[in-house]
Every structure is written in structure tokens, then in C-alpha cells.
């Protein structure tokens, strides 16, 4: 089982051939891909027990049965998700995902996107035959508009997906394309995909001889394929054609095919597999308007998902030591119940070192976060309401009457001073009540015959809510809005009135403050 032993063994193509009979239709492009895979794998130097093939459903997805490695023929579209779990469980494996245009881009589109986005160390090979083969010939998400099939007898009215563009949208770190009919190119591209660490995405134009036999004719015919394929090589000019007489030039943002007879070599694009915009341009070049770009379109290095995750495990173990179950169980507030005799002493202990405790769950996390969040900059206005005290309002000197005063005297005073609110005090000048215009209207007017005979204490509101001058203005506003008060008496520590604040005063003050701020 040692790796040294693994390296000593030289594998051959035959080591990767399983005992199962291959069951694709005669002439199917899948045979060529299988043959090249079995040829390439020994050369990659990966032991076959470390190699896993995972597929979904479709003609291409039979692939794992024919490889004498570990493998799973899973369910439709989900191979990238299975492969992701496997890569996390054992990052030492070399995992191939075999999928098709229906499996990978229709039912399994979501998983393909996310496996690529996460840069899981997988080699994803998508066989694109632009048709559903296994279910006997319906159009697929890569079928061209107008494709006539059993499910689109008048021609498909759907726009196709461009697999390379999809991979680019998912921020793929490796994107390549090849074709079943060109074994050497296919083998070389498979090898490159295998070498790349992270998610490799390889689209293979594959011929379904039964349901879509003419799809790739122009690209596979040996005689003229060199005129329709642009073979990419990093750092090399994009030149193609049987006589290597054509090239790709950028006109603004648009690529164009030019003849080398007319254009300088310096004007021809040079392939750069690390350039993201260039990869997108190459992916957008569709045959027959352009030659089909083949080879490695993009190849950059980014951290792979499982590596990062296992890295976190290692970091956590370095920082905190390998987890100790007893500590985990006891990472909470603890209490001890003693053998019951007398009233026992209970002590709370917490073994939880910081971060050991499981997080508090439920909605209150947000509540805590909000309390715990960094200092918030108050709006100036809020600030003003909270920091400025009621003293700033220059509260009016209170007009008071003694609690033995008659109603008549009180009302007369109110008229004299032209105020809507009167404070009532006891012998020691402490506030005992408040009497307002509202009381006049509701408790006195029309109800009392002789104002001189009635004492104010029977008509006032006793023990009113009060505030002190050094409290924030906001507090007065709050009380006024909660209770609908129009006046709030201010008192000192001894309960003697020091002033009175009316709703009008507060509004006036706010108005000025607002004007100051907007100036």
C-alpha cells in the first residue's frame, strides 16, 4: 500500500480496461474518448486505485463501467456533487466526472456551475453531442435553434447554451475543448486537464451517430478540418488553416478571421491561457462563423476547495489541538448536583474557552450582533436629541398655585399669564398636580356652577409624570408621544417644580435645530 510501491508499477492501457462489454452504438464517438482516456491515464502516473470515475445518466455516463478504477454511475446530473463530497472525504484521489450536454447543462446545470465555482479538484469532461441520445433523440440545451427532433418536429425554438461560456461564468480555472475524431489532440488535452489542480472543464465535441450524425462533420473530416479548427497553444499566434495562412485579429472587441497574406503577423492575436477576457472571446467564437477554438483556452492556478477545507482542519488542530469530546460536552454553563443531604452548594463553572461553545442559536443572534456591533455613527439629529438636555429648551418658569386654591383663582391666573397649564404645589412647594386647558374644557366648563367654591385638587391630575432638567430632550419627546402629553413639568431632586416644557417648545426647538443643520 505504500506510495513507493505505487510508483514502481508501470501501468499500461490494459490495466484500465474493465471486464465489462462496452455497449455504445457502433461508430459512437464515445469509443474514441474511452480509448484515449485509457491510453492517457498510465502516462499521468496516478495509480488506478487512486483514480475514480463518477458519472450521471446518459450515454456518456456509462463510462465508469468500462474503466477498471473505482467508479460510481450515479443519478442524472448529480455527478459533480458526488465528486465534491468524495474529494472532501479523500483529497488524495484523482476524480474524473463524466457528463454530457443534457446531464451537465440541463438537469445538472446547478451542480456543474458550483463544482467549477468552488474549484474542486475534479476533471470534468462534458461530451457534447447536442442531442439526447439515451432517451432516443430529443433536442438538448446545446442544440442549435431549428434542430428538428422527436420533441421539436417543427424545429427547436430554444437558444442553446455555450458550455465554455458557462464554465467561464463560473470562474473556471481550467477550460479546454477537443473533439472525438482527433485522437492525438484529444489525448493531449485530456493529459492537460489531468495535470491541472482544481476544477478542469473539458468540452469534447462528440458524435452521436444515431441521432445527430452531422453535427460535427465539418470539424471531423480529416481533409478540411484544419480549415475549421483553431488549435490553441499558450504563447503562440492564433494561426490556422491547412496552409497556415489564416489568423485571428481583434477589431475593437470583436475577433475577425484575416488572411496572413494581407495582415502582419504582429497584428495576429497571441494566445494567453491566463487571460480571462481572451478566454471569453475564444469561447464565444462559434463555428461556422469562426474556426472552433480547440485546446486549452484557460489555465490558471487558484486554491482548490478540498485543500482549503482540509487546511482549515489542520489550522484548527494546530491552534486548538485535536478535538477533545469531554471538553465539547462540557463547553457550556455547568452545574453540579451533589449527593443530596443538606442544602447543597451549587457552583457554576464554565470550561468553555473562547470559541469552544456552540453558537447561541435562534433569532436572537441578530439581536446580539446588533448590540455587539461596532460603534454606530449617530445621525447628527439623533445625536442632538440624545445629548442635549431639557435645559437647552429654556423651560418656562413655572406658574404655580397652592393646592388649596380655588378653581376660580387658578383659571384667572392662567388667563393672566396666558398659559395653558398650571402646576399645583403643596405647602413645601412640591409638585402635587397639574391642571391644563384640557381639564378646563372637560372637567369644568359647563359642569361647575361656582368656581370659587371648588378647590383645584378635585379637578387637577394628581402626581403627574415629571422629568428633570438634565435629562435628554429625547426622553421628553418619548413621553409626549407615548402618552399624548402636551405639557411636562420639570422638577428638582426635592420634587419642586423648576420649569415646564410644552410640546410647542420642543417642536420649535427641533425646527430651529433642523434649520441650523440644513444651512
Amino acid at each position, binding site marked *: 500500500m505504500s506510495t513507493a510501491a505505487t510508483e514502481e508499477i508501470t501501468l499500461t492501457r490494459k490495466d484500465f480496461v474493465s471486464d465489462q462489454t462496452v455497449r455504445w452504438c457502433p461508430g459512437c464517438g464515445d469509443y474514441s474518448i474511452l480509448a484515449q482516456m485509457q491510453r492517457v491515464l498510465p502516462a499521468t502516473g496516478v495509480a488506478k486505485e487512486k483514480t475514480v470515475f463518477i458519472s450521471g445518466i446518459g450515454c456518456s455516463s456509462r463510462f465508469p463501467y468500462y474503466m477498471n478504477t473505482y467508479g*460510481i454511475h450515479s*443519478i442524472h446530473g448529480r455527478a459533480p456533487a458526488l465528486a465534491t463530497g*468524495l474529494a472532501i472525504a*479523500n483529497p488524495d484521489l484523482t476524480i474524473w466526472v463524466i457528463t454530457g450536454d443534457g446531464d451537465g447543462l440541463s438537469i445538472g446545470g446547478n451542480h456543474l456551475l458550483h463544482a467549477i465555482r468552488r474549484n474542486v479538484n475534479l476533471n470534468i469532461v462534458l461530451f457534447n453531442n447536442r442531442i439526447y441520445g439515451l432517451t432516443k433523440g430529443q433536442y438538448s440545451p446545446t442544440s442549435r435553434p431549428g434542430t428538428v427532433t422527436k420533441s421539436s418536429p417543427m424545429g427547436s425554438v430554444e437558444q442553446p447554451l455555450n458550455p465554455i461560456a458557462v464554465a467561464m461564468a463560473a470562474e473556471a480555472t481550467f477550460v479546454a475543448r477537443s473533439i472525438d475524431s482527433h485522437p492525438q489532440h484529444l489525448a493531449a488535452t485530456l493529459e492537460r486537464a489531468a495535470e491541472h489542480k482544481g476544477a478542469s472543464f473539458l468540452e469534447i465535441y462528440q458524435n452521436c451517430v444515431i441521432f445527430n450524425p452531422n453535427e460535427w462533420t465539418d470539424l471531423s473530416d480529416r481533409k478540411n478540418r484544419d480549415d475549421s479548427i483553431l488549435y490553441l497553444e499558450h504563447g503562440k499566434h492564433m494561426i490556422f488553416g491547412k496552409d497556415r495562412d489564416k489568423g485571428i485579429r481583434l477589431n475593437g472587441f470583436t475577433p475577425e478571421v484575416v488572411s496572413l497574406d494581407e495582415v502582419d503577423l504582429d497584428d495576429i492575436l497571441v494566445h494567453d491561457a491566463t487571460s480571462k477576457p481572451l478566454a471569453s472571446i475564444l469561447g464565444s467564437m462559434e463555428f461556422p462563423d469562426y474556426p472552433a477554438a480547440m485546446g486549452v483556452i484557460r489555465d490558471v492556478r487558484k486554491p482548490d476547495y478540498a485543500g482549503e477545507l482540509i487546511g482549515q482542519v489542520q489550522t484548527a488542530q494546530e491552534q486548538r489541538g485535536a478535538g477533545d469530546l469531554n471538553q465539547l460536552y462540557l463547553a457550556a454553563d*455547568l452545574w453540579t448536583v451533589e449527593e443530596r443531604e443538606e442544602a447543597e452548594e*451549587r457552583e457554576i463553572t464554565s470550561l468553555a474557552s473562547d470559541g469552544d461553545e456552540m453558537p447561541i442559536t435562534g*433569532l436572537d443572534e441578530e439581536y446580539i450582533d446588533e448590540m*455587539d456591533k461596532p460603534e454606530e455613527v449617530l445621525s447628527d439629529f439623533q445625536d442632538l436629541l440624545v445629548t442635549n438636555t431639557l435645559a437647552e429648551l429654556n423651560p418656562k418658569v413655572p406658574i404655580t398655585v397652592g393646592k388649596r386654591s380655588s378653581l376660580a383663582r387658578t383659571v384667572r391666573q392662567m388667563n393672566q399669564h396666558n398659559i395653558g397649564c398650571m402646576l399645583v404645589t403643596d405647602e413645601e412647594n412640591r409638585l402635587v398636580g397639574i391642571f391644563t386647558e384640557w381639564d378646563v374644557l372637560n372637567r369644568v366648563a359647563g359642569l361647575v356652577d361656582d368656581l370659587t367654591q371648588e378647590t383645584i385638587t378635585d379637578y387637577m391630575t394628581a402626581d403627574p409624570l415629571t422629568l428633570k432638567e438634565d435629562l435628554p430632550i429625547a426622553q421628553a419627546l418619548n413621553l409626549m408621544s407615548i402618552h399624548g402629553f402636551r405639557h411636562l413639568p420639570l422638577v428638582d431632586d426635592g420634587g419642586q417644580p423648576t420649569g415646564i416644557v410644552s410640546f410647542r417648545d420642543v417642536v420649535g426647538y427641533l425646527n430651529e435645530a433642523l434649520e441650523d443643520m440644513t444651512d
Partner: protein
Amino acid sequence: MTDRVSAETYEVEELESVAIRFAGDSGDGMQLTGTQFTNTSAVFGNDISTMPDFPAEIRAPAGTLAGVSGFQVHFSSRNVLTPGDAPQVLVAMNPAALKASLPELERAGTIIVNTDAFTKQNLSKAGYGSNPLEDDSLEGYQVLAVPMTSLNREALAGFKELTNKERDRCQNFFALGMVFWMFDRSMDTTRDWLFKKFARKPIIAEANLKAMETGYFLGETTETFQQRYNVRPAALPPGTYRKVTGNEALSMGLVTAAQKMGKPLFYGSYPITPASDILHSLAPLRHFDVRTFQAEDEIAAICAVIGAAFGGALAVTGTSGPGIALKSEAINLALTLELPMIVVNVQRGGPSTGLPTKTEQADLLQAMFGRNGESPLPIVAPATPSDCFEMALEAARLAVRAMTPVFLLSEGFLANSAEPWQAPRAEDIPEISVKHPQGHRNGNGHSPFLPYERDPETLARPWALPGTPGLEHRLGGLSKAPLTGNVSYDPEHNEQMISERAEKVARLAGVIPEQDVFGAAEAELLMLSWGGTFGVVRSAVASAQRAGRSVAHAHLRYLNPFPRNLGDVLKRYRKILVPELNSGQLALLLRSKLGVEVETYANLSARPLKIAEVRDVINANLGRG
């Protein structure tokens, strides 16, 4: 009006147990308040049981009924099994909280209200035509009307660094202080928690402490509170305790199972209420080699779990009913690949999106039958929050033993409820034995590896891991031949594989505990329950037994296979009644699998059963007298 009265003059009444409900806006921090009261009571030595009640919307409009967040804690000097039927005390921070919780409150219960929140606007948001504090709608209750907002503001006026909003956020601690006073509880646990939690911002801790103390001393210095209560410590078995929710216990159980297998724990999940907390609990445990994977969807989560199981991890996915529906196809793949894994379903109210934050037990038949083809899988169901720990270990043990996915059916109620837990010692938990076939180099005269060669005793196939030389094999979802696992459409092969898979699950009955019964071995009535209804049914049966009724209780933790003696047990009772939070799913299984006559008591309110309700059912089934 604020004459100081010394604490000694209060009457302190001894109570056996009390249930308090804290209710407010979801932004009021009621879960936190309830949790703090719970911790203090637990530390004091009471037995406790709690149940949170979240609004479904994270940020429902403030002041509305939809936004009410509640937390109920039941604390007692006796052993308690449930969060309490009807709370005796309600703390209502606004009119909506009062309105939503009042129907649950015990008659003549105590209501502590924040009068400042009873503004016209809040009243109308809660749908009150008139102020219930001023009309006679609270007649018969003991109402303690406290202007918490203004008193709290006054108390915190000195905290000039804080905004008014920040000060107001402390008013739940003001309320907590009052309740602490009322039940004669120490503020120490909460004070310590505050300074630990807000170590970075001690001013917040100070302000909350001040609010809490002010609430506490309000009780001491005013006549608002006439009465104090005392609930003595419970006679729990000696030992060290902590408080644990079902989801916490489940998480710790999974980590333990992985360690006892010597495996990494792979947890693949897509966020869903009420299972997400398992993901949250596990994610910080990387030092236990916990590899959490937040998948792009439910299907990816289970598929990644299948991949991880193939790779040799203890692989687990957690979700709720709607997620199981999406995972069904993949669960069937796992069944035919015969790989060990745990599928956790924290059941919530259904069907469809249903009631995400409420509880139900209506996915039993989904676990049993909700997949295409013949698809028998083991099912276990924890009975209490702390039992989630045990059943996680059990699920792992059964999964590895029979090489099969195992369903663990938890419930929203269990997931979020808490109870005291006497943590085990890790050394006392048995290892879970895992065998992987040894590798070899080809060409050494080895016969080809047979991935479906079954163990004669368990019928499990070998768990051969990728990376092992000489055991390369392919698995798939197509029908297969015995031994080789090669694709085969042969009808006999199909039949053989189906019956072998069924048989290996059935054989687990030999290694799960026999069914026990609480009460007499023979009686008029047997109450037969499963899942999170345990505490309520047990309490109701115990009370009926004390009253001399001929009733016993059996509680199922293993739903497939059933305990091997279940049929015999059921024969001994004249009548069997199955209370369930569904329309009779276990009853249906019992009838069809054991051929016994059982009756259903169905409750479809998406809330836990109540003890009184079950008591009534027992009485009704035994005839009065």
C-alpha cells in the same frame, strides 16, 4: 407612591413548578431573556424544559402578531418532561405579545406588561380595539403594569455613550430583573454571561446589568409586586449537568460517532429551518476533523454525502421535510450503492413549505415509503432533546452495521427545546466498529473483488475505500447482479437484491433494544407514542396512574425495524391508543405491519401536545370513574 418596603415583608410562596412565557417583538431579545432565566434556574438546581416559539419571518413588522417571538421555560423542583402546558406567568413586552400569548396563559395567571408599549399605534397593530389594560378583558388575571420603557430609560440616562435605541434594547434585561426578583433568583449567572459576551463592548454589558438591577430593585422597592415565589431545586441524580437543545445534542452525537469510528465527520447540508442550527453547531468544530459542506441545494447535499460515504467518512446530511422530498432520488441511489450514512430530518409543519418554525411528526411515512421502488431503510427517532445525542450514535452504529442510509427523525420541537443533560464521559461510550477490506496488488493470485459479497450475519456488503489497491470496483443505480454488482436486468437478480436489502434492515431488530413499558405489564389501555411527544405522554400517563387508572405507556425510538418484542407487548393491552402530531401515520404502520388494532389520537395543530389534553384522552378512553 414609591414607599420602600423591605423584602422581608413579602410573602414567599413555595411552588412545585412554574412555567413562564417571555413574549415580545422578534427584535426584543426574548429568546435571550428566556435563555438567561433558564440558565439561572438550571444552575440553581431546578429541572427545566424550554420551548422557543419563533415567528416564521425573520423581520416581521414590529408590533404585529406575526412578529411575536416567545420563549417558554418550565422549571420545577420535580422531574419535568415538558415545557409546560399553560404558563402561569406571562411577560408581555407589547400588545401583540399579550394578544398572541394570552390564550395559552393559565386562568388567573400573572401578566407582567410593559405599559409604555401600549400606545394607540401598537394596540391597533395588534388588532386591539381598546386598550386591554384599561377595559375588563384581563379581569381574573393578576396584572402587573410596569412602564418598562420609561423606567429603563430613566435608569440608563447616565449611559451617555449609548443611543436611545441602544438603551431601549436593554429593556428585556429590565424585565428579566423583575422576574429574577419575583422568583428569588440570583443575577450572578447572567451578569457573568453579559461581561463575557460583550467583552469587546463592556458598556453594553454595564447598561444591561444596570437595566436588570433596576428591574430587580423595582420589585424590591415598590408595591407593584405583592408576592414572591420559590421553586426549590429538584432531586436530579448527582453529577455534572449542562443544558442542551436537541440540535446541539444531535451535533455532539454526530461528532462523537465519527470519533468513535475513527473517521472524519462529513456534514453536507443546505440551510433550512429548523435544521440549519446543526450546520451552525458543527461548522466551528474543524478541530474534530468535522468537514461541513454548505451545498448549492438539497440534492447536492445528499449527493455529496454519498460521495463522502464512498470515500470513507461518516457522512451525514440534515434537512427538513421539503428537503427530504428533494433528496429522495439520491437516497435511493445510496440505498442501492449500500453505503452507510445518516439522513437527519428535523420535521416541521407541512405539507409544502408549511409551517417552517412549527413542529409536526408527519414525515414518518415519507421516511418509510416516500421513494420509488422497494426502498426499506432503518428509521430512528429521539424522544427528548438529549436523546438526540444517543440516537445519533445509534443511527451511525446501524448505518455502518448494515451498510445503509439511516433516517433520524427529529422534530422542530426537539431541535429547539432544551433540558438538563448529564454529559457522559467520552471514554464510556463504546467504539463503533468499522471494517474495511484489505487491499492487495493485482497478479498475486487474488480472486476478483466482489463488492456485493455479503456478510453472512448482517448481510452488509464490504465497505471498500477508493485508494485501496486491488479492490477497484464500480457501483451504480442500475439493477445489479449479486456478488459482482455488475449491471444486470435479470429478473431473478433483481428479486434477490431487493430481498437481501430488505432482510439486512429487518435483521437490525436483533441488535436494537427490546421495547419497554412504563407501568403494568397488562392494563386496560396502552398509550403508544414516538418522537418528541414522549415527555407529554409520559407525564399524562404518570398522572393517570397516580389517579389509579389502568394505563401504561410505551414509547418507540426505533420505527424501522420495530423492536422485536413489540407485537408481544401490544397483545397484553386491551386497547392501544397512538397519540401523534399527524393524522395517524404510526397507527397505520402498526396495523399493517403487526396486524394489531390501534386507535389514533391525531393532533394537527403543529404544536406540541399538552399534558391535560392527553390526560383527557386517557380518561375518555377508559371511561370516567
